[in-house]
């Protein structure tokens, strides 16, 4: 480790969605997630970079519109900016929306005496919109260095580093031109240094918005887009899934042979292969392909700027549920991961509405649950539809998603009518310009950061869980395995809600990670049976049917997969966000109660038919 005698603190501040995280990533080489919507960064992130033998510690602050905080989180950011607890403050501005951004910069200059550098980002976008900026003039008027940048393509980043280096070493103070009585404001700066060559144009965005957020077509188009994403995921995942299953089955056989060859004790061999190996490979072959397709698609949507438009389309529904329109953004994040969705609820300012959004977040299925839903749907509901089956499958999945969002809305309304009474707060949403997603980057990042992360987490849980199941399935008391005791104990209760002991047991054991529920069900059934090969979906269906699965079981399992307790990571996150055991318990019990009630009713109705 090299020691640096000079260490400087840099802070990145600015309005939401101006590209602070992109600058941050470009400096540090880190991969802080970026997305084209205001509120993407809710956490302070710290990173560092080396420039000219000095170390710079850089803080990526969440975006704020002004120094007058509107929420607790914003207050932390504003206090930090005001504290001057850094060597240089870099204020990132969006060139395409320069007046509003300058207002914030001027406000900081008037309120805080610190070394400040202005980075006017997105100049490429502004240019396309016909905005020309005289940066030298701006620097002169503001009395601080101004750097023009297009952080996404790396333009201006070296210059910005250089300016920061100059700023930390210089003794001169900045912002002399402006004090609190100064006449300078954003309007006269804009007048003096910006030229709007073409009458401000965002024709393309407005044209696209005519459809995507149209009064009539907004919601239908959104459903079509969602269905399309599901369809691509299902169709695209099929083949690699089969390939992987076949490969792992072949490899499993070889491993068994090899273990026999080296005279590995039969019991250990069985524990390793039938227990750990089967569970692990199942997760990889069934979970990995859909995740590796869904995550990038979702990130593309996020990158393009469509996400806030979803919030726009659905706001009326949320208003009727007495909650915040931004809840649809946290729901969308929940599709990726409920724990992320819960953290994302910080974008909601009102504490009451934020709590509702947190409690109801796990009503939407996360990525860990999607593959389970897809597998069950394809096994039990679409077998007979030939080449239309994947389209049909996506529609059923879409139906489930609509169901889960509807339940979210209903439960939100229920909460805001009972425990969390209140009127909906105002809702202001910025619709960012559409941006061409960085496709290559998105794919690489979402595969490496998200898919592999989720996969490793699943594997870390699955290996011991596989072993545990094998042990309790094989340790016998009085001729009956512990597992059989457990499942039999759960069975009568589980039957009431249309499941069976094995399924309920799998959901309980799947508390640390929902990804492992299906493989556990499989293992429990297999531990009583004779099959030892990893089955494909057709064989899997056979196994389930042999163990008493009917369409009604499948429906109830789907419903329970949608509505049960959130996974352990989500629960921990909820506690961290709410600091309340009571609300964590509510978040745990509410979806569980909904799931139990729904399964009970559906089972009762289906058994009448």
């Amino acid at each position: 480790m090299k020691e640096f005698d000079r260490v400087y603190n840099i802070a990145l501040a600015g309005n939401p969605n101006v590209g602070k995280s992109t600058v941050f990533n470009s400096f540090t080489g880190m991969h802080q997630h970026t997305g084209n919507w205001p509120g993407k960064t809710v956490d302070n992130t710290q990173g560092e970079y080396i420039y000219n033998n000095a170390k710079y510690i850089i803080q990526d602050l969440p975006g704020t519109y002004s120094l007058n905080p509107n929420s607790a989180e914003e207050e932390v950011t504003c206090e930090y900016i005001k504290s001057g607890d850094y060597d240089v403050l870099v204020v990132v501005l969006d060139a395409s929306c320069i007046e509003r951004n300058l207002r914030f910069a001027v406000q900081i200059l008037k309120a805080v005496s610190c070394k400040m550098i202005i980075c006017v980002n997105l100049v490429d976008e502004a240019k396309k919109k016909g905005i020309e900026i005289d940066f030298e003039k701006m620097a002169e008027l503001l009395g601080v260095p101004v750097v023009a940048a297009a952080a996404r393509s790396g333009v201006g980043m070296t210059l910005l580093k250089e300016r920061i280096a100059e700023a930390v070493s210089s003794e001169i103070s900045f912002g002399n031109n402006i004090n609190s009585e100064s006449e300078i404001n954003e309007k006269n700066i804009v007048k003096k240094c910006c030229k709007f060559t073409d009458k401000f144009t965002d024709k393309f965005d407005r044209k696209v918005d005519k459809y995507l957020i149209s009064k009539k077509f907004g919601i239908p188009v959104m459903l079509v887009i969602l269905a399309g994403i599901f369809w691509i995921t299902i169709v695209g995942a099929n083949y690699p899934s089969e390939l992987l299953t076949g490969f792992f089955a072949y490899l499993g056989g070889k491993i068994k042979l090899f273990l026999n060859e080296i005279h590995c004790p039969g019991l250990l061999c069985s524990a390793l292969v039938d227990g750990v190996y089967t569970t692990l490979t199942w997760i990889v072959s069934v979970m990995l392909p859909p995740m590796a397709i869904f995550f990038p698609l979702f990130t593309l949507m996020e990158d393009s700027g469509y996400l806030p438009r979803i919030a726009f389309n659905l706001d009326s529904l949320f208003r009727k549920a007495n909650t915040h329109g931004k809840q649809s953004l946290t729901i969308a994040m929940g599709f990726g991961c409920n724990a992320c969705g819960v953290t994302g609820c910080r974008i909601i300012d009102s504490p009451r509405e934020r709590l509702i959004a947190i409690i109801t977040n796990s009503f939407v299925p996360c990525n860990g649950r999607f593959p389970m839903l897809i597998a069950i749907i394809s096994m039990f509901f679409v077998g007979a539809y030939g080449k239309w089956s994947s389209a049909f499958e996506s529609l059923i999945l879409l139906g489930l998603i609509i169901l889960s969002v509807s339940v979210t809305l209903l439960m939100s309304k229920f909460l805001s009518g009972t425990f969390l009474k209140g009127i909906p707060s105002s809702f202001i949403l910025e619709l960012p310009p559409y941006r061409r997603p960085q496709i290559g980057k998105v794919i690489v990042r979402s595969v490496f950061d998200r898919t592999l992360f989720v996969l490793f987490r699943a594997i870390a849980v699955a290996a011991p869980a596989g072993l545990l199941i094998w042990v309790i399935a094989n340790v016998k008391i009085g001729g009956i395995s512990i597992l059989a005791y457990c499942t039999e104990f759960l069975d009568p209760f589980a039957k009431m809600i249309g499941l069976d002991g094995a399924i309920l047991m799998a959901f309980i054991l799947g508390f640390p990670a929902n990804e492992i529920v299906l493989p556990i069900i499989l293992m429990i059934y297999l531990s009583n049976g004779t099959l030892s090969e990893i089955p494909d979906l057709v064989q899997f269906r056979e196994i389930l049917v042999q163990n008493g699965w009917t369409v009604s079981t499948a429906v109830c399992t789907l419903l329970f997969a949608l509505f049960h307790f959130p996974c352990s990571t989500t629960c921990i996150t909820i506690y961290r966000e709410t600091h309340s055991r009571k609300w964590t318990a509510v978040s745990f019990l509410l979806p569980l109660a909904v799931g139990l009630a729904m399964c009970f009713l559906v089972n009762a109705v289906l058994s009448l038919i």
Partner: protein
Amino acid sequence: MTDAITTLNEASENDRCLICGVDDSLPVKGRLTELGFYEGAVIERLQVGSFGSPIACRVSGAVIAVRSSDAGKISVKVLR
């Protein structure tokens, strides 16, 4: 009609509006000001969402959506 003062939710699509005032009872008045909804600013009312809310407006170069109930507390003069 030209000089009649109305509220933002009453304006029609693509109307350019001069903001005459924002009701003090609006809890987000401060935030709206920061975003460019202040007296004397000229904004452009764009589309409206699925069930009549929210209302998208072009404000100092950005597109901002407000709920129609909030827009009812912003009085504007439609410039024709």
